[in-house]
């Protein structure tokens, strides 16, 4: 019970103090909010890109185009070797005619084009979908390297390059976010510590009196620590609100038109929202500890 009473006292004092100097505290909360927003925005973009990459890699398909006039025996050998590979989920052999039919079905307006060429231009191919757990760029590269020089294989086509580029982009965005977020988090710690220090200065007499009538150091410091954490946490809530609003805006106005990402739902991971608020509280905690460490409380 005494612990709860002390905590209740800390929170009550912290709230009173936040309200008493609401202007400067709003400024501090705003600074933290903007910093966390920038960090959160980078992380959200990274998460969304990552989701796109994951969705794409789930459908990774490798197509082996076969040489013209390939002996069925060689094709069958290739098929059976492919089937034995652990990365292969499904294997479909597309004959030249089937490829032509598919083209006609997919591109209705161009369906007469092959007739003008006098000959079916489509080669025979084997389409492979890759098993879960074998969809990493490294694994795909291994698989393709193992078969691209096999007898009968003319050319291999796969989406790896795009996936690799996107994965690099995700890493870059995340790294940039980390660096920028780190710098801004430091700025927030500095802001909070100065705001708390101002409060400590303003209330130094009061704090001395508390010590003189027997308050422990923890009891005198508690409200300031809670105040810093509340400032940080509120800054986190501001950041989450800004992110949420921003995402809604982006999702509605910009990406609706984009075929590439439009189908991917734009989202903010719930864990990220919690992490931002908790991160804000951590920033506040460090800020108030820094300022209390410097003062005589």
């Amino acid at each position, binding site marked *: 019970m005494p612990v709860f009473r*002390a905590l209740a006292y800390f929170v009550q004092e912290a709230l009173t103090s936040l309200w008493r100097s609401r202007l400067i505290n709003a400024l501090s909360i705003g600074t933290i909010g903007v910093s966390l927003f920038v960090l959160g925005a980078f992380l959200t973009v990274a998460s969304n890109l990552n989701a796109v990459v994951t969705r794409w890699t789930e459908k990774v398909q490798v197509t082996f185009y076969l040489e013209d006039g390939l002996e069925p025996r060689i094709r069958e050998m290739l098929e059976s070797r492919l089937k034995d590979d652990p990365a292969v989920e499904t294997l479909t052999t597309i004959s030249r005619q089937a490829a032509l039919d598919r083209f006609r079905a997919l591109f209705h307006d161009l369906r007469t084009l092959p007739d003008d060429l006098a000959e079916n231009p489509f080669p025979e191919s084997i389409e492979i979908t890759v098993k879960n757990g074998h969809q990493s760029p490294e694994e795909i590269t291994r698989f393709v390297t193992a078969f691209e020089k096999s007898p009968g294989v003319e050319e291999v086509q796969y989406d790896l390059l795009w996936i690799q580029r996107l994965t690099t982009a995700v890493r870059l965005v995340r790294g940039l976010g980390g660096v920028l977020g780190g710098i801004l988090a430091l700025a927030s710690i500095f802001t909070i510590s100065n705001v708390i220090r101002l409060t400590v200065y303003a209330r130094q007499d*009061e704090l001395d009196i*508390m010590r*003189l*009538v*027997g308050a422990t150091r923890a*009891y005198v410091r508690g409200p300031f620590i809670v105040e810093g954490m509340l400032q940080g946490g509120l800054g986190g809530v501001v950041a989450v609100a800004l992110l949420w609003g921003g995402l809604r805006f982006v999702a509605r106005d910009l990406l609706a038109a984009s075929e590439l990402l439009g189908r991917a739902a734009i989202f903010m991971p719930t864990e990220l929202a919690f992490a931002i608020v908790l991160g804000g509280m951590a920033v506040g905690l460090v800020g108030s500890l820094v300022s209390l460490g410097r003062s005589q409380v």
Partner: protein
Amino acid sequence: MIQAFHVYKQYDRESVALSDITLHVEKGEFCFLTGPSGAGKTTFLKLVFREELPSQGQILVGGRNVTAIPEAQIPELRRSIGVVFQDFKLLKRKTILENVAFVLRILAVPHKEQKRRAFNALKAVGLHHKMHAYPMQLSGGEQQRVAIARALINEPMLLLADEPTGNLDPGMAQEIMTLFQEVNARGTTVLVATHDREMIQRMGKRVITIQRGRVNE
């Protein structure tokens, strides 16, 4: 209750506040510490509740060497001592009821109990009707009585009062002294620093005189 052995306090080379103070105040005793302004009375009180450390010598309070207790135990020492400060030291942002209850609050006494005891303490100094006022709304004498109520609320083993009647009219001063006597009768040791000769004579208690930093009993 208080045992001081060859205590010296020096702030810098020129100003010696206390010099070779050796004195004893028995448990349950009521005595006055007197001397002209600047004689070192306040400094001595500060050493007793560990607001300051002596430059040399030892002070025992209730058998504990306060010059040697670790930092973490200072709050506990201060909670067992009621202090009436010369400048009152009231929390300006809190009502006088909250000021008086603060000592109980840091001891995590239940809220209702805090209020009840704080009200009674204010009643004892005749200020219960102003319990929702802030210190700045009160006169110097009233603030002094709030400081006295706060010092007494936790029934301390030792009461230190620095010029507690300095701002009070003779009638109120006498009332406060009577209150101190009642507290003393319940077992609290009382040490009052004052230069009010008349009051000292009227009370007829033991007097310790400090002059230019030295004891002159």
